[in-house]
Protein backbone atom coordinates (compact mmCIF):
# COMPACT_ATOMS: atom_id res chain seq x y z
CA UNK A 1 0.00 0.00 0.00
CA UNK A 2 2.74 2.30 0.99
CA UNK A 3 4.14 1.75 -2.43
CA UNK A 4 0.81 2.49 -4.02
CA UNK A 5 0.66 5.70 -2.08
CA UNK A 6 4.15 6.62 -3.17
CA UNK A 7 3.26 5.88 -6.74
CA UNK A 8 0.22 8.06 -6.29
CA UNK A 9 2.39 10.79 -4.87
CA UNK A 10 4.65 10.67 -7.89
CA UNK A 11 1.67 10.77 -10.13
CA UNK A 12 0.12 13.60 -8.17
CA UNK A 13 3.15 15.79 -8.57
CA UNK A 14 3.37 14.71 -12.18
CA UNK A 15 0.01 16.23 -12.91
CA UNK A 16 0.61 19.41 -11.00
CA UNK A 17 3.80 19.92 -12.91
CA UNK A 18 2.29 18.85 -16.17
CA UNK A 19 -0.42 21.45 -15.80
CA UNK A 20 1.97 24.21 -14.91
CA UNK A 21 4.64 23.34 -17.43
CA UNK A 22 2.80 21.76 -20.35
CA UNK A 23 4.80 20.22 -23.16
CA UNK A 24 8.08 21.33 -21.71
CA UNK A 25 7.38 19.30 -18.56
CA UNK A 26 6.68 16.14 -20.48
CA UNK A 27 9.84 16.71 -22.48
CA UNK A 28 11.89 17.06 -19.29
CA UNK A 29 10.39 13.90 -17.78
CA UNK A 30 11.21 12.12 -21.03
CA UNK A 31 14.75 13.49 -20.75
CA UNK A 32 14.93 12.21 -17.18
CA UNK A 33 13.86 8.73 -18.29
CA UNK A 34 16.35 8.74 -21.14
CA UNK A 35 19.18 9.82 -18.84
CA UNK A 36 18.41 6.89 -16.58
CA UNK A 37 17.98 4.36 -19.37
CA UNK A 38 21.56 4.88 -20.56
CA UNK A 39 22.99 2.96 -17.60
CA UNK A 40 20.79 0.38 -15.92
CA UNK A 41 21.88 -1.02 -12.54
CA UNK A 42 20.10 -4.22 -13.61
CA UNK A 43 23.41 -4.93 -15.36
CA UNK A 44 24.88 -5.60 -11.90
CA UNK A 45 22.22 -8.27 -11.40
CA UNK A 46 22.88 -9.67 -14.88
CA UNK A 47 26.59 -9.99 -14.15
CA UNK A 48 25.94 -11.63 -10.79
CA UNK A 49 23.43 -13.98 -12.41
CA UNK A 50 25.89 -15.09 -15.06
CA UNK A 51 28.44 -15.85 -12.38
CA UNK A 52 25.87 -17.79 -10.35
CA UNK A 53 24.95 -19.82 -13.43
CA UNK A 54 28.55 -20.91 -13.88
CA UNK A 55 29.48 -21.34 -10.23
CA UNK A 56 29.71 -24.82 -8.73
CA UNK A 57 27.39 -24.79 -5.74
CA UNK A 58 25.27 -26.96 -3.48
CA UNK A 59 25.77 -30.47 -2.07
CA UNK A 60 26.51 -31.78 -5.59
CA UNK A 61 29.05 -29.05 -6.24
CA UNK A 62 27.64 -28.48 -9.70
CA UNK A 63 26.97 -25.43 -11.84
CA UNK A 64 23.72 -24.75 -13.64
CA UNK A 65 25.39 -25.02 -17.04
CA UNK A 66 23.55 -28.28 -17.78
CA UNK A 67 20.18 -26.75 -16.93
CA UNK A 68 17.68 -27.16 -19.77
CA UNK A 69 15.54 -24.07 -20.13
CA UNK A 70 13.66 -25.60 -23.04
CA UNK A 71 16.15 -25.31 -25.89
CA UNK A 72 18.48 -28.04 -24.64
CA UNK A 73 20.96 -28.29 -21.73
CA UNK A 74 22.93 -25.08 -21.23
CA UNK A 75 21.17 -23.15 -24.00
CA UNK A 76 20.29 -19.78 -22.56
CA UNK A 77 20.18 -17.57 -25.63
CA UNK A 78 16.58 -17.01 -26.65
CA UNK A 79 15.20 -19.39 -24.01
CA UNK A 80 13.09 -16.83 -22.19
CA UNK A 81 10.95 -15.72 -25.13
CA UNK A 82 9.81 -19.37 -25.44
CA UNK A 83 8.73 -19.73 -21.81
CA UNK A 84 6.59 -20.95 -20.10
CA UNK A 85 6.65 -24.35 -21.80
CA UNK A 86 6.14 -28.05 -21.05
CA UNK A 87 9.13 -30.00 -19.70
CA UNK A 88 9.04 -33.77 -20.07
CA UNK A 89 11.39 -34.47 -17.15
CA UNK A 90 9.15 -32.76 -14.61
CA UNK A 91 5.93 -33.45 -16.53
CA UNK A 92 4.92 -29.84 -16.00
CA UNK A 93 4.57 -26.51 -17.72
CA UNK A 94 7.15 -24.24 -16.10
CA UNK A 95 7.99 -20.55 -16.26
CA UNK A 96 11.61 -19.47 -15.92
CA UNK A 97 11.60 -19.28 -12.15
CA UNK A 98 9.82 -22.58 -11.68
CA UNK A 99 12.32 -24.16 -14.09
CA UNK A 100 15.28 -22.65 -12.25
CA UNK A 101 13.98 -24.08 -8.98
CA UNK A 102 13.95 -27.53 -10.66
CA UNK A 103 17.49 -27.08 -11.98
CA UNK A 104 18.89 -25.85 -8.68
CA UNK A 105 17.33 -28.75 -6.77
CA UNK A 106 18.16 -31.44 -9.33
CA UNK A 107 21.60 -30.35 -10.53
CA UNK A 108 22.98 -28.74 -7.39
CA UNK A 109 21.08 -30.76 -4.79
CA UNK A 110 19.90 -27.67 -2.90
CA UNK A 111 16.57 -28.42 -1.15
CA UNK A 112 13.55 -26.69 -2.67
CA UNK A 113 12.60 -24.95 0.57
CA UNK A 114 16.03 -23.32 0.69
CA UNK A 115 15.65 -22.07 -2.88
CA UNK A 116 12.23 -20.52 -2.44
CA UNK A 117 12.61 -19.27 1.13
CA UNK A 118 13.64 -15.76 0.16
CA UNK A 119 13.08 -15.38 -3.55
CA UNK A 120 12.78 -11.58 -3.46
CA UNK A 121 15.88 -9.62 -2.52
CA UNK A 122 16.02 -6.89 0.09
CA UNK A 123 19.22 -4.91 -0.05
CA UNK A 124 22.80 -6.08 -0.24
CA UNK A 125 22.50 -8.18 2.90
CA UNK A 126 19.62 -10.23 1.53
CA UNK A 127 20.34 -10.61 -2.14
CA UNK A 128 18.20 -12.92 -4.22
CA UNK A 129 20.03 -15.48 -6.34
CA UNK A 130 16.83 -16.01 -8.30
CA UNK A 131 16.47 -12.35 -9.26
CA UNK A 132 20.07 -12.31 -10.43
CA UNK A 133 19.77 -15.52 -12.45
CA UNK A 134 16.55 -14.29 -14.03
CA UNK A 135 18.10 -10.90 -14.85
CA UNK A 136 20.91 -12.60 -16.75
CA UNK A 137 18.84 -15.28 -18.48
CA UNK A 138 16.21 -12.79 -19.65
CA UNK A 139 18.91 -10.42 -20.90
CA UNK A 140 20.00 -13.23 -23.23
CA UNK A 141 16.66 -12.91 -25.04
CA UNK A 142 16.84 -9.17 -25.61
CA UNK A 143 15.79 -8.14 -29.09
CA UNK A 144 14.07 -11.45 -29.81
CA UNK A 145 10.40 -11.99 -30.52
CA UNK A 146 8.07 -13.58 -27.99
CA UNK A 147 7.16 -17.06 -29.26
CA UNK A 148 5.51 -19.10 -26.52
CA UNK A 149 4.90 -22.74 -27.54
CA UNK A 150 1.31 -23.97 -27.34
CA UNK A 151 1.57 -27.41 -29.00
CA UNK A 152 1.49 -29.59 -25.88
CA UNK A 153 -1.94 -30.19 -24.29
CA UNK A 154 -0.51 -29.16 -20.90
CA UNK A 155 0.58 -25.82 -22.37
CA UNK A 156 -2.94 -25.23 -23.62
CA UNK A 157 -4.36 -26.28 -20.26
CA UNK A 158 -2.16 -23.84 -18.34
CA UNK A 159 -3.04 -21.04 -20.74
CA UNK A 160 -6.76 -21.65 -20.19
CA UNK A 161 -6.31 -21.95 -16.44
CA UNK A 162 -4.32 -18.71 -16.48
CA UNK A 163 -7.14 -17.00 -18.34
CA UNK A 164 -9.61 -18.10 -15.69
CA UNK A 165 -7.34 -16.84 -12.91
CA UNK A 166 -7.04 -13.50 -14.70
CA UNK A 167 -10.82 -13.08 -14.52
CA UNK A 168 -11.26 -14.68 -11.09
CA UNK A 169 -12.95 -12.17 -8.80
CA UNK A 170 -12.37 -12.92 -5.16
CA UNK A 171 -11.00 -11.73 -1.86
CA UNK A 172 -12.41 -9.09 0.43
CA UNK A 173 -12.69 -6.52 -2.38
CA UNK A 174 -14.05 -8.69 -5.23
CA UNK A 175 -11.02 -7.80 -7.35
CA UNK A 176 -9.67 -9.80 -10.29
CA UNK A 177 -6.61 -9.02 -12.43
CA UNK A 178 -9.17 -7.95 -15.02
CA UNK A 179 -10.64 -5.32 -12.71
CA UNK A 180 -7.69 -3.04 -13.43
CA UNK A 181 -6.18 -4.52 -16.58
CA UNK A 182 -8.93 -4.98 -19.14
CA UNK A 183 -9.79 -1.43 -20.17
CA UNK A 184 -8.05 1.17 -22.30
CA UNK A 185 -6.53 4.30 -20.76
CA UNK A 186 -7.34 3.27 -17.19
CA UNK A 187 -5.44 4.56 -14.19
CA UNK A 188 -5.12 3.93 -10.46
CA UNK A 189 -4.57 7.44 -9.17
CA UNK A 190 -2.41 8.69 -12.05
CA UNK A 191 -0.58 5.44 -12.62
CA UNK A 192 -1.35 4.07 -16.06
CA UNK A 193 -2.67 0.53 -16.17
CA UNK A 194 -1.80 -1.58 -19.20
CA UNK A 195 -4.82 -3.15 -20.89
CA UNK A 196 -3.65 -6.74 -20.98
CA UNK A 197 -6.57 -7.73 -23.19
CA UNK A 198 -5.07 -5.97 -26.19
CA UNK A 199 -2.09 -7.29 -28.15
CA UNK A 200 -0.22 -4.03 -27.79
CA UNK A 201 -0.90 -3.72 -24.05
CA UNK A 202 0.08 -7.32 -23.38
CA UNK A 203 3.29 -6.99 -25.39
CA UNK A 204 4.35 -3.73 -23.82
CA UNK A 205 3.77 -5.07 -20.32
CA UNK A 206 5.28 -8.53 -20.67
CA UNK A 207 8.37 -7.61 -22.67
CA UNK A 208 9.53 -4.99 -20.15
CA UNK A 209 9.87 -7.30 -17.11
CA UNK A 210 12.10 -7.88 -15.19
CA UNK A 211 12.92 -4.27 -14.35
CA UNK A 212 15.23 -2.41 -12.02
CA UNK A 213 12.76 -0.56 -9.84
CA UNK A 214 14.25 2.81 -9.04
CA UNK A 215 11.88 3.15 -6.08
CA UNK A 216 13.08 -0.14 -4.57
CA UNK A 217 16.67 -0.28 -5.77
CA UNK A 218 16.05 -3.91 -6.77
CA UNK A 219 15.52 -5.93 -9.92
CA UNK A 220 12.01 -7.34 -9.83
CA UNK A 221 10.79 -10.20 -12.01
CA UNK A 222 7.41 -11.09 -13.50
CA UNK A 223 6.95 -13.45 -10.57
CA UNK A 224 7.31 -10.55 -8.15
CA UNK A 225 5.05 -8.33 -10.25
CA UNK A 226 2.22 -10.88 -10.07
CA UNK A 227 2.85 -11.60 -6.39
CA UNK A 228 2.55 -7.91 -5.56
CA UNK A 229 -0.58 -7.54 -7.71
CA UNK A 230 -2.24 -10.30 -5.67
CA UNK A 231 -1.23 -8.52 -2.47
CA UNK A 232 -2.97 -5.38 -3.66
CA UNK A 233 -5.95 -7.48 -4.77
CA UNK A 234 -6.19 -8.55 -1.09
CA UNK A 235 -5.72 -12.16 -2.14
CA UNK A 236 -3.81 -14.70 -0.05
CA UNK A 237 -0.17 -15.20 -0.96
CA UNK A 238 0.60 -17.14 -4.14
CA UNK A 239 3.43 -19.60 -3.63
CA UNK A 240 6.72 -18.79 -5.38
CA UNK A 241 6.91 -20.62 -8.72
CA UNK A 242 3.50 -22.13 -8.00
CA UNK A 243 1.20 -23.45 -10.72
CA UNK A 244 -1.18 -20.51 -10.37
CA UNK A 245 1.62 -18.06 -11.16
CA UNK A 246 2.88 -20.25 -14.01
CA UNK A 247 -0.62 -20.47 -15.49
CA UNK A 248 -1.17 -16.73 -15.30
CA UNK A 249 2.31 -16.17 -16.78
CA UNK A 250 1.47 -18.57 -19.64
CA UNK A 251 -1.65 -16.53 -20.39
CA UNK A 252 0.19 -13.20 -20.30
CA UNK A 253 3.26 -14.44 -22.18
CA UNK A 254 1.26 -16.06 -24.97
CA UNK A 255 -0.81 -12.90 -25.41
CA UNK A 256 2.47 -11.03 -25.90
CA UNK A 257 3.54 -13.32 -28.78
CA UNK A 258 5.33 -11.48 -31.55
CA UNK A 259 6.39 -8.62 -29.29
CA UNK A 260 10.09 -7.75 -29.16
CA UNK A 261 11.60 -8.63 -25.81
CA UNK A 262 13.35 -5.66 -24.17
CA UNK A 263 14.06 -6.47 -20.53
CA UNK A 264 15.65 -6.13 -18.06
CA UNK A 265 14.48 -2.54 -18.20
CA UNK A 266 14.32 0.26 -15.69
CA UNK A 267 11.04 1.42 -14.18
CA UNK A 268 10.11 3.74 -11.39
Amino acid at each position, binding site marked *: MRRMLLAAAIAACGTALAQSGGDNTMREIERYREALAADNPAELWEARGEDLWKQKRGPRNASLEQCDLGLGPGKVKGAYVQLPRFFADTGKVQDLESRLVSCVTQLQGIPREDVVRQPFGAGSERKSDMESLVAWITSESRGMKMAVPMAHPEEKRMYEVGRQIFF*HRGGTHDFACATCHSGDDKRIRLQDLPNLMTKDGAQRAYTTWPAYRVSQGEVRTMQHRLWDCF*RQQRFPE*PGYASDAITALTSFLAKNADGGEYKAPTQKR
Partner: protein
Amino acid sequence: MKKMLLYPALFAVTLAVAGCTASPAGGAGDAAAAATRSGGTDWRQAALDVMRGSFRDRGIATKDRIEQDDLQRVCSQYPDGDVPKEVAARLEKAQEATIRQPADGEYLGDWRAGERIAQTGVGWQWTDTAQTVAGGNCYACHQLSKAELSFGNLGPSLYNYGKVRGQSDAVVKYTWGRLWNSQAYNACNNMPRFGHKGLLTEAQLKDLMALLLDPASPVNQ
Protein backbone atom coordinates in the same frame (compact mmCIF):
# COMPACT_ATOMS: atom_id res chain seq x y z
CA MET B 1 -12.61 -3.67 16.50
CA LYS B 2 -11.40 -4.66 13.06
CA LYS B 3 -11.12 -8.27 14.02
CA MET B 4 -14.71 -8.39 15.23
CA LEU B 5 -15.82 -6.86 11.99
CA LEU B 6 -14.02 -9.47 10.01
CA TYR B 7 -16.25 -12.29 11.16
CA PRO B 8 -19.54 -11.12 9.70
CA ALA B 9 -17.81 -10.72 6.36
CA LEU B 10 -16.33 -14.18 6.43
CA PHE B 11 -19.62 -15.57 7.57
CA ALA B 12 -21.32 -13.96 4.63
CA VAL B 13 -18.76 -15.45 2.26
CA THR B 14 -19.20 -18.90 3.74
CA LEU B 15 -22.94 -18.70 3.31
CA ALA B 16 -22.59 -17.52 -0.25
CA VAL B 17 -20.12 -20.27 -1.10
CA ALA B 18 -22.51 -22.80 0.30
CA GLY B 19 -25.11 -21.19 -1.93
CA CYS B 20 -22.95 -21.79 -4.98
CA THR B 21 -22.67 -25.49 -4.56
CA ALA B 22 -26.42 -25.71 -4.36
CA SER B 23 -26.84 -24.18 -7.83
CA PRO B 24 -23.68 -24.87 -9.83
CA ALA B 25 -24.74 -23.00 -12.94
CA GLY B 26 -25.63 -20.05 -10.75
CA GLY B 27 -28.22 -18.92 -13.23
CA ALA B 28 -25.47 -17.88 -15.61
CA GLY B 29 -26.36 -17.86 -19.27
CA ASP B 30 -24.92 -19.99 -22.07
CA ALA B 31 -22.35 -17.38 -22.99
CA ALA B 32 -20.75 -17.71 -19.59
CA ALA B 33 -20.72 -21.45 -19.86
CA ALA B 34 -18.95 -21.18 -23.20
CA ALA B 35 -16.27 -18.97 -21.68
CA THR B 36 -15.49 -21.44 -18.93
CA ARG B 37 -15.97 -24.71 -20.81
CA SER B 38 -14.40 -25.89 -24.01
CA GLY B 39 -13.40 -29.29 -25.32
CA GLY B 40 -15.32 -30.87 -22.48
CA THR B 41 -13.14 -29.24 -19.82
CA ASP B 42 -14.49 -27.03 -17.07
CA TRP B 43 -11.66 -24.50 -17.00
CA ARG B 44 -13.17 -22.62 -14.12
CA GLN B 45 -13.02 -25.73 -11.97
CA ALA B 46 -9.51 -26.49 -13.21
CA ALA B 47 -8.43 -22.97 -12.27
CA LEU B 48 -9.97 -23.26 -8.82
CA ASP B 49 -8.10 -26.51 -8.23
CA VAL B 50 -4.83 -24.88 -9.30
CA MET B 51 -5.46 -21.83 -7.11
CA ARG B 52 -6.32 -23.96 -4.09
CA GLY B 53 -2.98 -25.71 -4.48
CA SER B 54 -0.98 -22.52 -5.06
CA PHE B 55 -2.25 -19.90 -2.62
CA ARG B 56 -1.64 -19.98 1.11
CA ASP B 57 -2.53 -18.07 4.25
CA ARG B 58 -0.38 -15.09 4.98
CA GLY B 59 -1.31 -13.00 8.00
CA ILE B 60 -4.86 -11.75 7.67
CA ALA B 61 -4.99 -12.73 3.99
CA THR B 62 -6.28 -16.25 4.51
CA LYS B 63 -6.61 -18.84 1.79
CA ASP B 64 -10.40 -18.92 1.91
CA ARG B 65 -10.35 -15.55 0.15
CA ILE B 66 -9.95 -17.29 -3.21
CA GLU B 67 -13.27 -19.07 -2.69
CA GLN B 68 -16.01 -17.11 -4.41
CA ASP B 69 -19.48 -16.09 -3.36
CA ASP B 70 -22.27 -16.17 -5.92
CA LEU B 71 -21.67 -12.63 -7.12
CA GLN B 72 -17.92 -13.09 -7.56
CA ARG B 73 -18.36 -16.38 -9.34
CA VAL B 74 -20.96 -15.18 -11.79
CA CYS B 75 -19.27 -11.84 -12.45
CA SER B 76 -15.96 -13.60 -13.19
CA GLN B 77 -17.68 -15.11 -16.22
CA TYR B 78 -18.56 -11.74 -17.74
CA PRO B 79 -15.24 -9.95 -17.85
CA ASP B 80 -16.51 -7.42 -20.38
CA GLY B 81 -19.33 -6.48 -18.05
CA ASP B 82 -21.96 -7.62 -20.56
CA VAL B 83 -24.01 -9.46 -17.95
CA PRO B 84 -27.35 -10.66 -19.32
CA LYS B 85 -30.20 -8.58 -17.92
CA GLU B 86 -31.91 -11.41 -16.07
CA VAL B 87 -28.63 -12.54 -14.48
CA ALA B 88 -27.86 -8.99 -13.36
CA ALA B 89 -31.37 -8.54 -11.97
CA ARG B 90 -31.08 -11.70 -9.91
CA LEU B 91 -27.68 -10.70 -8.53
CA GLU B 92 -28.78 -7.15 -7.78
CA LYS B 93 -31.81 -8.34 -5.85
CA ALA B 94 -29.69 -10.65 -3.71
CA GLN B 95 -27.13 -7.90 -3.07
CA GLU B 96 -29.76 -5.33 -2.23
CA ALA B 97 -31.04 -7.59 0.52
CA THR B 98 -27.67 -7.24 2.29
CA ILE B 99 -27.87 -3.47 2.73
CA ARG B 100 -28.22 -2.44 6.36
CA GLN B 101 -29.23 1.11 7.24
CA PRO B 102 -27.41 2.82 10.14
CA ALA B 103 -28.83 1.69 13.48
CA ASP B 104 -29.26 5.23 14.82
CA GLY B 105 -30.78 6.63 11.64
CA GLU B 106 -27.90 9.12 11.28
CA TYR B 107 -26.25 9.07 7.84
CA LEU B 108 -23.80 11.94 7.82
CA GLY B 109 -20.49 11.97 9.71
CA ASP B 110 -17.49 14.27 9.36
CA TRP B 111 -16.33 15.04 5.82
CA ARG B 112 -12.79 15.80 7.06
CA ALA B 113 -12.48 12.26 8.36
CA GLY B 114 -14.12 11.12 5.12
CA GLU B 115 -11.45 12.84 3.05
CA ARG B 116 -8.73 10.98 4.98
CA ILE B 117 -10.52 7.67 4.42
CA ALA B 118 -10.84 8.47 0.71
CA GLN B 119 -7.10 9.22 0.50
CA THR B 120 -5.94 6.08 2.32
CA GLY B 121 -5.73 2.66 0.72
CA VAL B 122 -4.20 0.73 3.57
CA GLY B 123 -5.94 -2.36 4.94
CA TRP B 124 -6.86 -5.99 4.24
CA GLN B 125 -3.56 -6.92 2.55
CA TRP B 126 -1.19 -9.54 3.89
CA THR B 127 1.11 -6.70 4.89
CA ASP B 128 -1.64 -5.31 7.15
CA THR B 129 -2.83 -6.65 10.48
CA ALA B 130 -6.25 -7.08 12.09
CA GLN B 131 -5.52 -3.83 13.93
CA THR B 132 -4.88 -1.84 10.75
CA VAL B 133 -7.53 0.86 10.32
CA ALA B 134 -8.47 0.38 6.70
CA GLY B 135 -9.05 3.18 4.23
CA GLY B 136 -11.48 3.34 1.35
CA ASN B 137 -8.90 4.38 -1.27
CA CYS B 138 -11.66 6.19 -3.17
CA TYR B 139 -9.19 8.42 -5.05
CA ALA B 140 -7.60 5.33 -6.57
CA CYS B 141 -10.65 5.10 -8.87
CA HIS B 142 -12.68 8.32 -8.53
CA GLN B 143 -12.24 12.02 -8.89
CA LEU B 144 -13.67 13.59 -5.73
CA SER B 145 -12.38 17.03 -4.80
CA LYS B 146 -11.00 19.61 -7.16
CA ALA B 147 -7.82 19.99 -5.15
CA GLU B 148 -6.70 16.37 -5.46
CA LEU B 149 -5.29 15.96 -8.95
CA SER B 150 -4.09 12.43 -8.42
CA PHE B 151 -7.24 10.41 -8.96
CA GLY B 152 -7.94 7.28 -10.95
CA ASN B 153 -10.58 6.69 -13.59
CA LEU B 154 -11.79 3.13 -13.01
CA GLY B 155 -14.93 4.66 -11.51
CA PRO B 156 -16.95 7.76 -12.48
CA SER B 157 -16.08 11.25 -11.26
CA LEU B 158 -17.84 12.12 -8.03
CA TYR B 159 -16.88 15.79 -8.08
CA ASN B 160 -19.90 17.90 -7.10
CA TYR B 161 -21.76 14.71 -6.15
CA GLY B 162 -23.85 16.40 -3.44
CA LYS B 163 -24.11 19.73 -5.17
CA VAL B 164 -25.84 18.11 -8.12
CA ARG B 165 -28.08 15.75 -6.16
CA GLY B 166 -28.90 17.57 -2.94
CA GLN B 167 -29.66 15.74 0.30
CA SER B 168 -33.13 14.34 -0.20
CA ASP B 169 -34.04 11.17 1.67
CA ALA B 170 -33.88 9.20 -1.56
CA VAL B 171 -30.40 10.51 -2.41
CA VAL B 172 -29.12 9.81 1.10
CA LYS B 173 -30.43 6.23 1.12
CA TYR B 174 -29.20 5.55 -2.42
CA THR B 175 -25.73 6.85 -1.56
CA TRP B 176 -25.60 4.78 1.60
CA GLY B 177 -26.62 1.73 -0.39
CA ARG B 178 -23.93 2.41 -3.01
CA LEU B 179 -21.26 2.51 -0.34
CA TRP B 180 -22.66 -0.49 1.53
CA ASN B 181 -23.05 -2.71 -1.50
CA SER B 182 -22.59 -1.14 -4.90
CA GLN B 183 -23.34 -4.46 -6.59
CA ALA B 184 -27.03 -3.95 -5.74
CA TYR B 185 -27.29 -1.26 -8.44
CA ASN B 186 -25.29 -2.47 -11.45
CA ALA B 187 -24.07 -5.95 -10.76
CA CYS B 188 -20.47 -6.83 -11.65
CA ASN B 189 -19.16 -3.27 -11.59
CA ASN B 190 -15.67 -2.81 -10.14
CA MET B 191 -16.53 -1.29 -6.76
CA PRO B 192 -15.90 -3.23 -3.52
CA ARG B 193 -18.84 -3.85 -1.19
CA PHE B 194 -17.56 -1.71 1.66
CA GLY B 195 -20.42 -2.26 4.10
CA HIS B 196 -21.48 -5.76 3.18
CA LYS B 197 -17.96 -7.16 3.39
CA GLY B 198 -17.12 -5.19 6.54
CA LEU B 199 -14.26 -3.37 4.80
CA LEU B 200 -15.12 -0.06 6.46
CA THR B 201 -16.96 0.52 9.74
CA GLU B 202 -20.38 2.14 9.88
CA ALA B 203 -18.77 5.28 11.32
CA GLN B 204 -16.31 5.40 8.41
CA LEU B 205 -19.13 5.02 5.90
CA LYS B 206 -20.92 7.96 7.53
CA ASP B 207 -17.78 10.05 7.15
CA LEU B 208 -17.67 9.15 3.45
CA MET B 209 -21.35 10.07 3.18
CA ALA B 210 -20.49 13.51 4.53
CA LEU B 211 -17.61 13.80 2.11
CA LEU B 212 -20.02 13.19 -0.77
CA LEU B 213 -23.05 15.11 0.46
CA ASP B 214 -22.03 17.86 2.90
CA PRO B 215 -22.15 21.23 1.11
CA ALA B 216 -18.96 22.21 2.98
CA SER B 217 -17.05 19.16 1.73
CA PRO B 218 -14.33 19.77 -0.88
CA VAL B 219 -16.28 17.43 -3.16
CA ASN B 220 -18.97 20.09 -3.48
CA GLN B 221 -16.71 23.14 -3.77
